[in-house]
């Protein structure tokens, strides 16, 4: 099977693995900061239009139109802020980790263009705290950009000022939610905020704010260089351009692959990542980060299309993380581990998630341990529906942020694909326990 990558944001870092993060290499071999001239020759609104034309959608998870998000800023209200979300914490996602360590200048250049487009004079990159080397390289890149006049006052004689601040997170998944990020950046617990008001109206310090994912920002210089139409000519339907997919789990060649959207899961997983390791069969896979409902081998020929994933497959491409589990995997164990993750990361603000996430973990724990009851899957679905009314993707929610419904996506997957297997196992376990009691009595 021939499947090939279409490298845009990952081209330079792949071409020069030994020094792609340095200012010298980025300038000499990747034209870093040369798109600024093109951008500053355009009016800010023209950049917003160009990005809208490209069809670029946020690459952090929700897939909202980037240019559209920018256009929501209220006219004439200043100051405005740009916040770049590099708090990559969605389990199995490792694309931003690569981008920040290996091409920080692409991020800085994208940040400058975006800040100019939305007329923000202060921008923040919220980087996951655990990315120590990435933080070091990004800090260096920002210093280099200041030293060479690409940041600070009157950039390139245009009269545009920009202060760019690297802000390190400190270990917390929910800071990756856009309003959780804002709370954290303000020095508080990273608790998400109720919307409306949306960040575009009242975000950081209650001022108009745009929050964009780090991969999204990395794409901006390329759209400026080649035009919105060029970007929109790639991809499929409303999923234009390329995306980085982090492929992990039981595959031959785990890693990040940048591909044109519209490719099938099979081409990506088997063609590029080499398929399931050690000649085994696939049992199931997670198609879009831990929060995405699971899929089966029978779905492998579906296209990587954001809208198709939602409407037809009742899941999402989310953060672009695909994790493959082979036939030896216990789906209950994976589900329990995800439940443990959400119980740990629930910020505690909304009752259904705070209470529900830890109860889901407790019930799954006893199921994995052989202490389950035949009705446990239904029990989970019953109280899970107080977090996710209807239990069907696209998920409704009784919580402020999407962490709530994410606590149930793996449980819904168990019910959808492995119900018979699980109920049979629980019945068997209960029967064993009963016989044990009778025998020992």
């Amino acid at each position: 099977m021939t499947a090939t990558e279409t490298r845009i944001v990952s081209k330079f870092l792949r071409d020069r693995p030994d020094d792609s993060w340095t200012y010298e290499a980025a300038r000499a071999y990747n034209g870093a900061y040369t798109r600024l001239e093109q951008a500053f020759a355009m009016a800010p609104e023209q950049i917003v239009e160009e990005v809208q034309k490209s069809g670029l959608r946020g690459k952090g998870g929700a897939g909202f139109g980037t240019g559209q998000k920018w256009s929501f800023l209220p006219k004439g209200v200043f100051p405005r802020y740009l916040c770049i979300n590099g708090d990559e914490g969605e389990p199995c996602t490792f694309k931003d980790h690569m981008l920040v360590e290996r091409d920080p200048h692409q991020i800085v250049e994208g940040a400058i263009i975006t800040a100019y487009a939305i007329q923000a004079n202060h921008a923040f990159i919220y980087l996951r705290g655990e990315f120590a080397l990435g933080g070091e390289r990004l800090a260096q890149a920002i210093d280099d950009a200041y030293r060479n006049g690409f940041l600070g006052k009157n950039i390139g004689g245009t009269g545009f000022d920009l202060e760019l601040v690297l802000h390190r997170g400190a270990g917390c998944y929910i800071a990756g939610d856009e309003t959780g990020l804002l709370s954290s950046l303000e020095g508080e617990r990273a608790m998400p905020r109720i919307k409306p008001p949306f960040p575009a109206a009242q975000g950081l310090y209650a001022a108009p704010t745009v929050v964009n994912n780090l991969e999204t920002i990395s794409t901006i210089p390329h759209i400026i260089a080649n035009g919105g139409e060029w970007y929109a000519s790639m991809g499929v339907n409303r999923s234009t351009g390329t995306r980085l997919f982090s492929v992990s789990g039981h595959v031959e060649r785990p890693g990040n692959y940048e591909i044109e959207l519209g490719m099938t899961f099979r081409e990506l997983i088997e063609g590029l990542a080499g398929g399931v390791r050690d000649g085994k069969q696939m049992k199931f896979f997670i198609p879009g980060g831990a929060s995405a409902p699971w899929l089966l081998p029978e779905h492998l020929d579906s296209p990587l299309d954001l809208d198709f994933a939602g409407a037809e497959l009742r899941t999402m491409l989310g953060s672009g993380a695909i994790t493959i589990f082979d036939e030896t995997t216990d789906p209950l164990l994976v589900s329990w581990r995800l439940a443990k993750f959400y119980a740990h990361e629930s910020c505690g603000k909304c009752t259904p998630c705070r209470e529900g996430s830890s109860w889901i973990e407790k019930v799954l724990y006893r199921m994995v341990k052989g202490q389950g009851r035949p009705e446990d899957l239904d029990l989970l679905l019953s109280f899970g529906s107080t977090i996710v009314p209807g239990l069907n993707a696209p998920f409704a929610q009784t919580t402020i942020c999407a962490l709530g419904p994410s606590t149930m996506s793996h449980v819904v997957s168990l019910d959808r694909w492995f119900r018979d297997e699980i109920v049979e196992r629980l019945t068997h376990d209960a029967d064993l326990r009963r016989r044990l009691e009778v025998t020992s009595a």
Partner: protein
Amino acid sequence: MGFSTTDRRRAEAIAAKYPQARSATLPLLFYVQDRDGWVSPQGIEDVAEFLKLTPAQVLGTCSFYTMFKTEPVGALVVSVCTNVACLVQGGPELHEQLRRRYAEDDSVFVEEVECLAHCDRAPALQVNYDFHGPHTTDSAVDLVEQYRSGAIPARTISGTAAGGDR
């Protein structure tokens, strides 16, 4: 006690980056963690005093984040991922073996962590926020010992570089 003159100068430089000083809470907590080796009650008070907040406000923020250690943990923090990509490739076993190996050792703190975004190198771990993987128990112990002997220069437990470009 409060901030020394040097502390104050550093803290002012950090706070000056933000339109509102309270945004400097996380970076200042990293700063006192590096200064004291952990986030001590004194560190909390110092940050609070500087930011004109109450210690309870600062501790409230601090306790929300896993990278702040409010008890002494020694010089090396070894973080082992057991989330799903590592779960099925030996992460929990690696964590358990390392935890036992260093249980009595006050200078090495082994912790189980959530996904580190290093899933293509599962099972993954970090030593003071340097990424490593995949590792077996033996190779991981060897790695930790290299940090301990200084053969590999370690970052601080906040992930701050040991010095120079690495």
